[in-house]
């Protein structure tokens, strides 16, 4: 996980123009450790602007970062760009200007393979679930592991366990057509969590469910956060945000992003 601690040895070469093989090995090992060091921020936006076509900017000078294991809400009135911001993070959109770094990598320099690798470190819960209608709940939830080329035997147990954990153990062999809105949402959340992502993005995950189920879904996110996943939930539901003490709030208004601590 991102909070893993990595040690590397400091080697001073300033007075040694002819280093010994042992010193060189130490240098090599230290450089490798530096390359493998945990990323400080999972997401970093610097002065990001986005414009659709030739109109005014939808988002202007957006700057923020998401730390490992953090929990934050992205909020704002309808149409202020919550989904757009999420799409920028998941690289479904490219910014018109500014810099976006994901897991320490500047996304403007990413090739397709690099983008795929980054997306495998994220889990996404879509507002409209985006479950594949011709697959069963089990197959939908197992999909992120399947596309990584893993054999079913290696993940069958963990997918089944996760489905029981989200309360869909009895519905794992049915297609989404027979699931209720809340069940679809839980399947969508399970799919986002199954690969144990470092960052979970959820777009209005409680928008289609009753308050009671919304609280239960929120508990799922809290559990995931406790196990090390950073969470970003886009919502306009103030009561939902009030349930998590200390969660940061990223507020979108007037095309800009304002950051407030959970106590503000």
């Amino acid at each position: 996980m991102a909070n893993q601690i990595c040690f590397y040895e400091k080697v001073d070469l300033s007075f040694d123009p002819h280093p010994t093989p042992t010193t060189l090995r130490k240098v090599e090992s230290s450089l490798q450790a530096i390359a493998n060091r945990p990323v400080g921020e999972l997401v970093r936006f610097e002065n990001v602007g986005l414009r659709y076509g030739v109109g005014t900017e939808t988002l202007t000078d957006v700057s923020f970062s998401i730390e490992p294991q953090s929990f934050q809400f992205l909020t704002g009135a309808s149409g202020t760009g919550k989904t757009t911001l999420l799409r920028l993070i998941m690289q479904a959109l490219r910014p018109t200007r500014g810099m976006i770094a994901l897991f320490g990598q500047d996304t403007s320099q990413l090739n397709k393979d690099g983008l795929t690798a980054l997306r495998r470190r994220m889990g996404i819960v879509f507002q409209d679930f985006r479950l594949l209608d011709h697959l069963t709940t089990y197959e939908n939830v197992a999909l992120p592991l399947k596309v990584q080329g893993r054999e079913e035997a290696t993940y069958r147990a963990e997918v089944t366990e996760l489905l029981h954990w989200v309360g869909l153990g009895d519905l794992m062999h049915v297609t989404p057509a027979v699931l209720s809105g809340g069940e679809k949402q839980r399947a969508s959340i399970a799919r986002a969590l199954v690969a144990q992502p470092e960052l979970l993005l959820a777009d209005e995950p409680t928008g289609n469910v009753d308050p009671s189920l919304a609280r239960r879904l929120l508990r799922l996110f809290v559990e995931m956060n406790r196990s090390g996943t950073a969470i970003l939930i886009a919502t306009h539901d103030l009561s939902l945000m009030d349930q998590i003490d200390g969660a940061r709030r990223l507020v979108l208004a007037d095309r800009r992003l304002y950051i407030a601590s959970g106590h503000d």
Partner: protein
Amino acid sequence: MTNSREHTQTGLLSYLRSIPLFRRDPLVAADPVTDRALISVIAIMTFLAAMTAGAAQFAASTTSHWQVLMASEVTVQLKPQGNRPIEADIVRASDILRGTSGVTSVKVFSREESSKLLEPWLGSASAIEGLPIPRLIAVRIDAAEPPNLTALGKAIADVAPGASLDDHRNWTRRLERISDLFMIASLSALFLVLAATGLAIVFATRGAMAGNREIIEVLHFIGADDRYIAAQFQRHFAVLGIRGGVIGGLIALVLLITLRLVGSSSVGLFDGNGFSGLALPGSEMMLATMLVISLVGLVAGVASRITVYRTIGRLA
């Protein structure tokens, strides 16, 4: 997958599922109507391509067969020369022919037989009784060690003025030319049919990918790379192509075998009246059909691969 599936997907079924033709490709949402229509189109295309290839192979074999027959026979024609006794010329010419190395048999057509040959054009033998009828000598030669036909023709002309030797070279050349043209036409038709098959696959693949755009987007977001997504679509359409190809090819094979059986019995009935020279559908034609099925499968695979990679880049 499921407990019940775990029990059923064992043994033979698991083995079958591991074969691409039978493997489930659940990520591509199957559209039964479109898939069936595509299989039908490819089956028809394969049938036409197989029949075209079969016809080309049939023409080539028949021409080759005829050429061998013609190359092993020459004809000596003796035209009446005023009052010169033609029967004596025939005897002299026959003697020379029989004494020539490489000649295997000599058959002299009598005046009645020659008149009979002219009947379709000049009427009954009695009507042309008084006319000077050219006489023919059919000569079979050893195709492996043929005599020197130029020298033979000259020797016959020396003893029988007005005699000429026809080695059917003009006919053979014409046959060759017709055969070549037919082969070019057949190969062009085969190419067009394969191209049409490829286009059908291209349009179907593009349509399916456009219809599955949302699925492709979701797959990208959950960490699937282009290669993985492309492989799903490519396999789906290549398998459809092979299924269609096998169906069309099998129908063509059944028809060719039927033609062979019917043709064989016809040869028995009409032997000597024009059918004996036909090269009936044989193992070469079956092989040509197999080749067409393989080509259709190849075209389907390549067409879907190219289309998938081009389309996926645009959708991404």
